């Protein structure tokens, strides 16, 4: 029992194997809030901060591989932001500089909050998440990893190692609604990818259900209504509104202390519609000149 500061992934896995009660500490921005409030009383802690295999990110062919210890601030770095723009957009909306400096993508997955801001991005881009334990690793999708609100399929002894995403896919947007810009847990958030090469639209919704929701019918509708040669939506306003309606229908929000179900359903439709509008305004390649030009109140 105690606090363990391993210096390699192997050491971390050995510790978790040897100390089954040990809890994993990443950036601490969720973990320590629970500890400080007395809701979490770990008997032993394995801090992953000094584990070099979990830091940074790398290119691997047409993919990017993000270490589980990658912080939100690091996601904002221009090189990575060029490759996965909506991840940077999502990271920008998290907390404050202090939180973004400490919080990690592995921690966002491990906490498995329905409001986790990177999670719709991972769902929309079809992330593959490597999970390891002493002597073995497995790869899971977001659906397989997150089994419910703040619940994962991680077994004792397992660590999230890295997250694999396709690089430079189409045009990407992330939008989020909350009472102000900083220090906000999402009332609703949306990641949307218009994949020009693959000719399909993917949209994932956060904070409007027990887990991240792929709005499959809305995706199919938008995919069928885009003129893929001209990069525009056939049917204009009516098509946008039908898309928003299908997104609202896909959501399963609840009333809680942060919002009402009705408002969340409304907000997620507005976000998704706006994301599709923005994505179609841009060229197939490259990022928008000024994403905040029309809607200064939304980040």
């Amino acid at each position: 029992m105690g606090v363990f500061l391993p210096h390699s992934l192997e050491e971390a896995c050995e510790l978790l194997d040897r100390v089954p009660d040990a809890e994993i500490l990443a950036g601490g921005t969720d973990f320590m809030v629970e500890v400080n409030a007395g809701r979490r009383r770990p008997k032993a802690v394995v801090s992953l901060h000094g584990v070099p295999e979990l830091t940074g990110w790398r290119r691997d062919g047409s993919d990017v591989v993000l270490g589980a210890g990658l912080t939100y601030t690091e996601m904002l770095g221009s090189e990575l932001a060029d490759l996965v723009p909506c991840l940077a957009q999502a990271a920008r909306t998290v907390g404050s500089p202090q939180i973004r400096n400490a919080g990690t993508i592995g921690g966002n997955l491990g906490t498995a909050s329905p409001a986790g801001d990177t999670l719709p991005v991972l769902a929309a881009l079809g992330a593959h998440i490597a999970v390891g334990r002493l002597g073995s690793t497995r790869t899971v999708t977001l659906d397989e990893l997150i089994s419910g609100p703040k619940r994962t399929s991680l077994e004792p002894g397992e660590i999230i190692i890295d997250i694999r995403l396709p690089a430079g896919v189409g045009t990407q947007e992330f939008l989020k609604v909350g009472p102000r810009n900083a220090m906000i847990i999402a009332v609703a958030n949306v990641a949307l990818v218009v994949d020009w090469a693959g000719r399909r639209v993917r949209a994932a919704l956060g904070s409007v259900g027990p887990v991240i929701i792929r709005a499959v019918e809305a995706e199919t509708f938008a995919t069928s209504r885009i003129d893929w040669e001209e990069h525009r939506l056939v049917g204009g306003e009516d098509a946008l509104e039908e898309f928003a309606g299908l997104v609202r229908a896909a959501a399963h929000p609840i009333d809680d202390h942060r919002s009402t179900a009705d408002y969340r359903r409304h907000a997620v439709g507005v976000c998704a519609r706006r994301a599709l509008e923005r994505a179609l305004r841009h060229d197939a390649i490259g990022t928008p000149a000024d994403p905040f030009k029309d809607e200064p109140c939304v980040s």
Partner: protein
Amino acid sequence: MCELSASETELLGYHLRVNGRDYQVIDAQLCENLLYVLRERLRLYGAKNACLEGECGSCSVLVDGVLECACTVLAAAAAGRDVVTVEGLTPAGGDLSDIQQAFVEQGAVQCGFCTPGLIVSVHHLLSHNPVPTDLEVREAISGNLCRCTGYGRILAAVHAVAAARANGEGAGS
């Protein structure tokens, strides 16, 4: 590997490096956050305790040069890392840093509870971005809540320091 094994009474001992000085922490509980240890064990009262959720920024410190909320850092896991508090950003001899002096001169301090955290955040901002825009300052201090000033005078203080440094007045701390 560093292993901080608890004794039979589940108490920990470890070393922390704060403001360039080594401190020995003894008989600590496993779950103590860095803010608690700084204030209650090391008697460094600069970082303030307000929310214990990482929301307010009153306990902002630098950990390995990175701005973080001390309340969301597990103190024992900060062993071996370099912690700097507001006390470590002031010149020796009790003078104020140029940032602190600007806060005083611009009236950016009212009740003062948020001030140490803001000083650390502004120090961190200006050391990476010597002449920030208004928007950059607002974003840099977006994790520091002040309920007194309305932020206008804080922004004025930051710009005053940036201008003075650009003119070669005071190297800053």
